[in-house]
């Protein structure tokens, strides 16, 4: 503590010099405000710069390049909508048969809906348990940490981890055959849509738990007691009080899960055995073919759909108010 006071002593003589006389107080206040503002810019500037260089500018470039021409090995900076027309090739002529891109998006939406429904159900009840049934603060922290720790470990490893369980000779098949329920190992457990959704739920339920828990913990417990005293059943309390008041958390969690799954290509790749197409995988495969404008066009389409979904969701709730 001695060095604090030492430092304070050194600078305190300066204090009278900076405090202006009464006639200068007004301009001093303005100056201080201007100084505070420029300090705020200095403080926030570096982060803004990082986002400008590595997020905003790249995003603008994606949109620009999506309208460029390309050949087999490079992009050509000339206006062309080839990236888009190639993507939707055969969509009209091939009717009523759905073209590849539409089929892929439908499949992605299906994976997205399944994952969203499951993460919402699991996330809601996990958060409910933590917020309302765990009464001691310490236990609440310990159990929340228990849910968070896997989030700090590698996603790929958490995907690989399903192989010994779901594979042809995995634990699940061993158990099923051992118990006589089946004679043949079940093939669709791994490298299938089932395993993709399972892994997505496994990885991303966390993104549902945190915001819903945050909303629930802010609910005034007296509201629930009041409902109980007024004779509401547990179900009525849940539907009329807890769910409406948790809505912001539910919406934020949903935005997280939906945007992650819509753009996912790694989980779909690893857990689908690289056999399942998704919106994100289209971009990846265009990129590996070095067709940058086509990849960018697909990115713009994906971005558009994601923005549509988010704006529909934010209509339900003002997100900024809840943070």
């Amino acid at each position, binding site marked *: 503590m001695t060095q*604090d006071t030492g430092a304070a002593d050194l*600078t*305190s003589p300066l*204090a009278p010099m900076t405090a202006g006389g009464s006639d200068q107080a007004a301009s001093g206040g303005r100056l201080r405000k201007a100084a505070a*503002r420029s*300090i705020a*810019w*200095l*403080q*926030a500037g*570096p*982060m803004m710069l990082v*986002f400008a260089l*590595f*997020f905003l*500018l*790249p*995003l603008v*470039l*994606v949109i620009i390049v999506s309208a460029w021409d390309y050949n087999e090995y490079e992009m050509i900076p000339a206006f062309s909508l080839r990236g888009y027309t190639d993507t939707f090739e055969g969509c009209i002529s091939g009717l009523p048969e759905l073209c590849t891109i539409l089929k892929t998006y439908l499949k992605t939406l299906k994976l997205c809906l399944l994952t969203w429904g499951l993460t919402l159900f699991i996330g809601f009840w*996990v958060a409910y*348990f933590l917020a309302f*049934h765990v009464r001691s603060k310490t236990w609440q922290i310990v159990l929340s940490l228990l*849910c968070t*720790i*896997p989030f*700090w*470990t*590698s*996603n*790929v*490893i*958490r995907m*690989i981890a399903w*192989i010994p*369980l779901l594979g042809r*000779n*995995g*634990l699940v098949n*061993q158990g099923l055959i051992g118990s006589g329920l089946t004679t043949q190992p079940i093939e669709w457990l791994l490298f299938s849509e089932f395993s993709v959704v399972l892994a997505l739920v*496994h990885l991303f339920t966390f993104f549902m738990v945190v915001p819903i828990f945050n909303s629930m913990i802010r609910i005034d417990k007296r509201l629930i007691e009041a409902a*109980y005293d007024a004779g509401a059943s547990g179900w009525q309390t849940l539907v009329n009080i807890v769910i409406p008041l948790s809505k912001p958390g539910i919406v934020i969690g949903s935005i997280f899960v939906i*945007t*992650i799954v*819509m*753009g*996912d290509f790694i989980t779909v790749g*690893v857990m689908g055995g*690289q056999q399942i197409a998704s919106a*994100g995988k289209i*971009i990846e495969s265009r*990129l590996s073919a070095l067709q*940058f404008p086509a*990849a*960018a066009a697909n*990115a713009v389409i*994906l971005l558009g759909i994601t923005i549509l979904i*988010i704006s529909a969701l934010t209509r339900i709730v003002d*997100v*900024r108010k809840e943070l």
Partner: protein
Amino acid sequence: MGDKRPRSFYILAAFFAAYVLFLYGPMIAIYILSFQGPDGGLTFPMNGVSLTWFGKVLSGAGIVDIGAAFKRSLALGLVVMVVTVVLSVAAGMAFRKPFRGSSVLFYTAIASLIMPSIITSLGIALEFRLLDDFINKHGADVGLGWLADGWTTGMGLFTSGLGAHLTWTLPFGLLIMFAIFNRFDGRLEEAARDLGATPWQTFRYVVLPIIAPSVVGIGLFGFTLSWDELARSSQAIGSVNTLPLELQGLTTTVTKPDIYALGTLTSAVSFLVIFAALSVILVLQARQRRHGSDAGKGTV
């Protein structure tokens, strides 16, 4: 709301336990399987117990140069951690006063957080590719001839890779700072100011010690998110790979338990960092409780 637990408690407790088992079960399975005997396969049962597969990974036999990827990821993770902590704390302080552009920064951070990673990654790849093309084609015209000679790419671990990771870690850092300052008592700073502390002294001796545990939390997020990052790195890392990228590559080719051993080693680093960070947070909190208030103890 009596003291007796309602029936729903037991149902939800069982549900929660099942969820935790679902979270940890598969991971524990591969940690166990990484100790397979030399003849063991990718699934149970265990065929003896050995350290064979760890030896394989560490000696690099059969697998790409894991040691180098390990070091690269570690270095990148540490840099991302430091940058995330510094920029987040600074920006968090800025948000305590009104300033023009604050909502732009806020929404940019949120957008960066929820942007599908493949789009961010593609954008950064494009940015650097266009930069490379520009330097190669026009470098000499604009007086950058010295740069254009022998220029291959600006992409790399600590340029495009670092940027890609920061777009993922900084939003978390900023949101944690918001959470901290929502609970922060601003009167403590006023008191420091009134006692003649300079802004820097106020920050260094009043604000920082109070927010220190959460700042360690930001560091924890910064390192672990970078250490495990995959989607944003995928297109933007340049010619070398990070550890998660190597691991992902191995999922399609490797049929031996060495991939589990590598997974166990990678997780061990994660757990080590998590454990260290949580311990530091606990120690800091305990210190705060001990030194937090000297009210009623008289003058020191």
